[in-house]
């Protein structure tokens, strides 16, 4: 079991730089998931999270323990994703690189999807990828990162009401996209 964020940050600031590995473990899943849904590409997600972790290593010595590190990380990942999207658009790679990956490759980490031959996982990913960025972020943070609505509001710098509205819109669109996949 990993120690809490504040304890790890304090230990790092006290000179135990080796705990940075534990700090990365604490955030890696959330960060990768967020970056993946932001970019739609596994390689981009890994690169972005790597950059974000390196930046985190630089800011940690002066970090104020009261602030949430994940909130900061979230913003860095969002900014890096936007930058990467712009860079791809400039080089003209965006249209080719945004072609969805073969389902076999996508399903390699999803046993259920492998058993079923494709399907639901890929469809969900595509449906989520089509959501507007704000709604997609709220949905991912609540559905996959299990953050509370209040925490998401803090991360995004908006009200809980706005988070609920975005989540409602996201679920409504997903309901339409996935209407043929769930049981009545």
């Amino acid at each position: 079991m990993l120690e809490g964020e504040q304890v790890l940050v304090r230990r790092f600031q006290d000179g135990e730089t080796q705990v940075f590995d534990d700090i990365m473990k604490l955030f890696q899943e959330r960060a990768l998931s967020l970056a993946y849904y932001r970019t739609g590409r596994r390689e981009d997600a890994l690169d972005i999270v790597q950059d974000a972790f390196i930046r985190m290593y630089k800011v940690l010595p002066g970090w104020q323990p009261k602030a949430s590190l994940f909130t900061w990380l979230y913003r860095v990942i969002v900014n890096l994703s936007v930058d990467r999207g712009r860079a791809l658009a400039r080089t003209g790679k965006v249209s080719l690189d945004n072609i969805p990956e073969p389902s076999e490759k996508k399903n390699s980490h999803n046993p259920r999807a492998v058993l079923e031959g494709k399907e639901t996982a890929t469809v969900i990913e595509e449906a989520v990828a089509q959501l507007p960025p704000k709604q997609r972020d709220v949905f991912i943070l609540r559905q996959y990162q299990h953050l509370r609505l209040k925490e998401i509001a803090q991360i995004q710098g908006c009200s809980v009401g706005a988070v609920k509205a975005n989540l409602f819109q996201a679920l409504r669109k997903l309901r339409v996209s996935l209407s043929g996949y769930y049981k009545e």
Partner: protein
Amino acid sequence: MNCKTFNKLLPGHLYGESSIEESEKVLSHARVCPDCRRLLDEMTGTISLLREEEKPHFSGGEMAALRMRVEQVISGMDRPPIHSSGPSRLKLFSRPLFLPVAGALVAASIIAVILFQPVENPDYLVSTTPNEVEELVAMTETVEEEYDSVDELCREMDELQQLFLNEPAPDTEAEMGVDNISVKA
């Protein structure tokens, strides 16, 4: 409750973040409104499907490789400045107990100064009663009327001083002949 409020409360209800009262409102509205009932059922089905498919997109090996790459990059960087574990001077002021204690000390000092203030007036302070003030004013007016200048008054004072210093010290006021001395030239 109307459908608009139902929509507002629905996300919190679906993710178990609404209060019991809010959930009861959602369910009771869904019982009487067929459209909202359908929306609730479909949303619940969508979330169930999403939960079933909730799997990590990255394997443990990929995450370990990522951390290793980060470690390689940061090992080539300068070590970050180590944070001092001892309390700094500024931190002392931001401690929760500092302000109440400092406030109490200041208040105690003020009370002590008020309570232990000396009652008697010191020797160097000369108290004046209203009568003395009146006499002083009257004397000033007399001097102003009788003398044209300060020099004249000073000359007069010198002469009087000479007179007293040259004569032997009298034992009584009568012997001094105060009544005979005329200030007026």
